[in-house]
């Protein structure tokens, strides 16, 4: 299925710009180290020794990744790696600063694990780039990816293996550590959807009949027999929601499903149908399960003292918002806030912690970098020639975007708060590794999209090869 898309003008120029990438990476290292320096100055008035150690390790890892890229993916998009490193570095500095303030011991604050996971993530990213030369081979593993996604999602529900914490079951315990398999499930799911929908897109975009209001077309209704994938997706999402009580993952995966279905079929009717049935099921869950009513109470009435005082009530959310309020427009400065007193300040609430220390200004900058990353992903999708790669790139970009929306939307009460990590920023090995894997895939696809097509031997003959 290497159908060539007809829109050639979206191709990216075959320019490497690795030196620009190197300069940007240098800036991210400086930003990371400055963030630690400011934290130290704010916390105990001196530049912390840890800044040099952690800064050098982080810098070395970043440069190593960059050098590897020069050899194995020289045409990769030069913005992706700096963006990822910027987020990773700010995350490392913030986690370190939170631990330093919490333990009161600035020289022994632990961010070592996060750095180790960063290194592991980068190695996985490079390995992926090295071994996966053509992303289209992933298309062969349609149902294996589906199975992998299912197993990964189902793992936390296995008795004895799954760990239920804070009202949701999204961890598994292995050797005293917890792992969050849904972080990897989302990648497997995107791979599956990309390959499955590419083959089924013609059928799924057939319209049975149109719904009109007067003379205006509202939407096309798909054929009844094509509803099966939607039904399966919906049942899976709702099953996940009910069994694990993890609204965040359910929302993220179902949202991704709808987005990719839309990209494959270009039928907004699928999105409308999908959103309505999901909302319907969520409304039903609200009626039946106390847990969801609690979530909605927290969402709507967070500042109600009664809701605040409940066990598992809105206390954490309110404290996060109060922290962000103290940050205001310009923030308290790294290390100046009190975010470390909030539960999960370095994982699910890391954006609130950043919002307090760096203020609206800093949070906007971070959002813009994430957004840039997302838009680079979309751009790769546009520039790629193969439909499967288009689906994969746009799917991965959307997962990243939607995950940030679910987390920050919850923190700012646009949607109900659900526990979820923020890509690259939050503490946690699973999240970091899966983020770096996604970056690896994006880099590989961008490298392929930008690499000049092999030059045909120019014979004096009559045939002229036109380069695309």
């Amino acid at each position, binding site marked *: 299925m290497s159908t060539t898309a007809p829109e050639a003008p979206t191709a990216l120029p075959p320019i490497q710009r690795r030196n620009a990438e190197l300069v940007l990476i240098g800036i991210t290292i400086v930003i990371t180290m400055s963030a630690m320096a400011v934290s130290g100055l704010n916390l105990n008035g001196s530049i912390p020794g840890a800044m040099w150690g952690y800064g050098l390790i982080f810098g070395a890892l970043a440069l190593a990744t960059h050098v590897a890229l020069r050899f194995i993916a020289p045409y990769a998009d030069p913005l992706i790696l700096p963006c990822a490193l910027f987020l990773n570095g700010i995350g490392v500095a913030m986690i370190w600063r939170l631990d330093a303030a919490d333990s009161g011991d600035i020289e022994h604050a632990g961010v070592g694990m996060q750095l180790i996971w960063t290194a592991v993530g980068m190695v996985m990213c490079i390995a992926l780039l090295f071994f996966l030369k053509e992303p289209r081979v992933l298309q062969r593993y349609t149902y294996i990816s589906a199975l992998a996604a299912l197993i990964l999602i189902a793992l936390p529900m296995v008795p004895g293996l799954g760990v239920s914490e804070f009202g949701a079951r999204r961890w598994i315990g292995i050797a005293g550590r917890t792992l969050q398999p849904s972080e990897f499930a989302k990648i497997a799911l995107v791979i599956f959807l990309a390959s499955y929908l590419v083959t089924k897109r013609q059928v799924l975009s057939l319209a049975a009949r149109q719904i009109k209001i007067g003379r205006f077309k509202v939407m096309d209704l798909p054929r009844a027999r094509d509803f099966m994938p939607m039904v399966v997706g919906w049942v899976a999402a709702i099953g996940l929601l009910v069994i694990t009580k993890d609204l965040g993952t359910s929302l993220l995966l179902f949202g991704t499903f709808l987005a990719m279905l839309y990209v494959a079929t270009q039928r907004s009717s699928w999105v409308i149908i999908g959103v309505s049935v999901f909302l319907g099921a969520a409304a039903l869950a609200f009626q039946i399960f106390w847990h969801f009513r609690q979530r909605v109470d927290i969402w709507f009435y967070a500042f109600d*003292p009664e809701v605040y005082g409940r066990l598992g009530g809105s206390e954490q959310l309110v404290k996060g918002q109060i922290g962000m309020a103290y940050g205001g427009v310009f923030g308290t400065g790294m290390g100046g806030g009190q975010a470390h007193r909030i539960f999960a300040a370095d994982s699910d609430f890391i954006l609130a912690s950043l919002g307090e220390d760096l203020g609206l200004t800093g949070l906007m900058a971070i959002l813009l970098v994430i957004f840039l990353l997302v838009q680079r992903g979309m751009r790769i999708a546009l520039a790629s020639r193969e439909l499967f790669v288009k689906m994969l790139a746009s799917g991965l970009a959307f997962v990243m975007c939607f995950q940030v929306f679910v987390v920050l939307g919850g923190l700012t009460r646009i949607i109900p708060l659900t526990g979820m990590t923020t890509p690259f920023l939050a503490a946690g090995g699973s999240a970091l590794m899966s983020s770096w894997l996604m970056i690896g895939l994006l880099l590989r696809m961008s490298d392929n999209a930008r690499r000049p097509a092999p030059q045909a031997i120019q014979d004096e003959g009559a045939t002229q090869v036109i380069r695309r």
Partner: protein
Amino acid sequence: MNTPIRRLSVFAMLLFGALMLQLTWIQGFQAEAIREDPLNSRQYTERLTEQRGPIVIGDENVAFSTDISEEDEPARFQREYAGGTMYTPVVGSFRSYGASGIEYTENALLDGSDDRLAVRNFRDMITGREPEGARVELTIDPAVQEAGFKGFEQLGMNGAAVAIEPDTGAILGSVSYPSYDANDVVSITDITEAGENYVALENQEDQPLLNRALRERYAPGSTFKIVTAAAAIEHLDAGPDSTQDAPDNLSFNSGPNLPNATPGGTCNGGSPDTLAHSIQISCNTSFANWAIEMGGEALSEQATAFGFNPEEGEEFNVPLNVIPSLAPVESEDSILGRAGIGQSNVESTPLQMAMVAAGVANSGEVMHPYLVDSVRDADRSVVTQTSPEVYSQATSASTASMLKDMMVLVTGPDGSGPNAAIPGVDVAGKTGTAETGGELGTHNWFIGFAPADDPEIAVAVVIEHGGGSGGSLAAPIARQMMEAVVL
């Protein structure tokens, strides 16, 4: 496939746009409101490291912060209170887990985070000076406050007293008894003990945490007859010599009879009584008849003009929140008649009855009551200065003048409140003894002002379930408070 991808990236942009808008709303526009939310425990716990401004009464710092840290340690400020227990209901306490009184309402000024201090904070930041909260100076007159509090201490009964400067609305005294020592509940070195002390106070039966002057309603009894008389003059064109039926025992079409409570149970031997005499000896039946004659709306309207029945959201904040006083519209004669003598559904805070006295004293003009005179920053330059504000013209000046003349009779030898008389000064007053139903004793009231021809102070005193009469229990305390100003 490029069109849907483009649309998807536009959708991604919308999602980020929504996040950015909401963040701007929360961190930009809502930030101050969120910080000042009562759920924000930070404003209490974390401000311990900052120099909080003092609360000042008369030139004395009654609440102030002292650095108790060891040398070379970061500063830790312990809040301390001077002046004993008498100021606590007003000043409040600044605890680890909450605050009350002025400490609560003026928190943003005291801790320096208020926007009005922004310029000065900015200057401090540049010059590297330690930031300091603002000084909040109160209108309380220590002599008045002490006179009132001592009165309750000697009497040994619960109650409250409020004194107002009639022409400004400045609150000169606000006593609530019993009270507590704020120092017992604010220790930052022994937070557990402070917390336990606070819980003990919460559970104490006589409610020392309740600010009775502003946060408790009592039936005002006969002191409310001033409101009824004002309505009679305004709505029925009555004068001091206008008469009204004053039987010894008033019966209604329905409901229980209303007897007179004056000694001997008679006002004018059962004959119609003048308005002036009815006030002087506090006649029940004539006032019930006045109320019935004017109707429930006129009575309730007059009370509203004095500050009763505030609309929702319009309650007084002085800046401590005052619970609304109530005088609803009645239609049933037996209830309306009793409303005319401050019973049935009429309930008032001590502050509200002081406002009635102050309104009469100030030619019918009721001033907004207030406790904060001025706010100054650390080097004493004025940040805000309260300017007196008219709340309402409750009665015409001539009505007020008639009421005053009649109220002076009360403290005369033949009146019901001679205990409030001050030698050499004309004192206007009105006693009240309110039935409370049940086994508990009556509430005993006195409201008044002095000197009658040029009032400097208006007071309201209530003894909670004193079981005596207003003239015997409340009038002496009122006199001592007034003496603190006029003598």
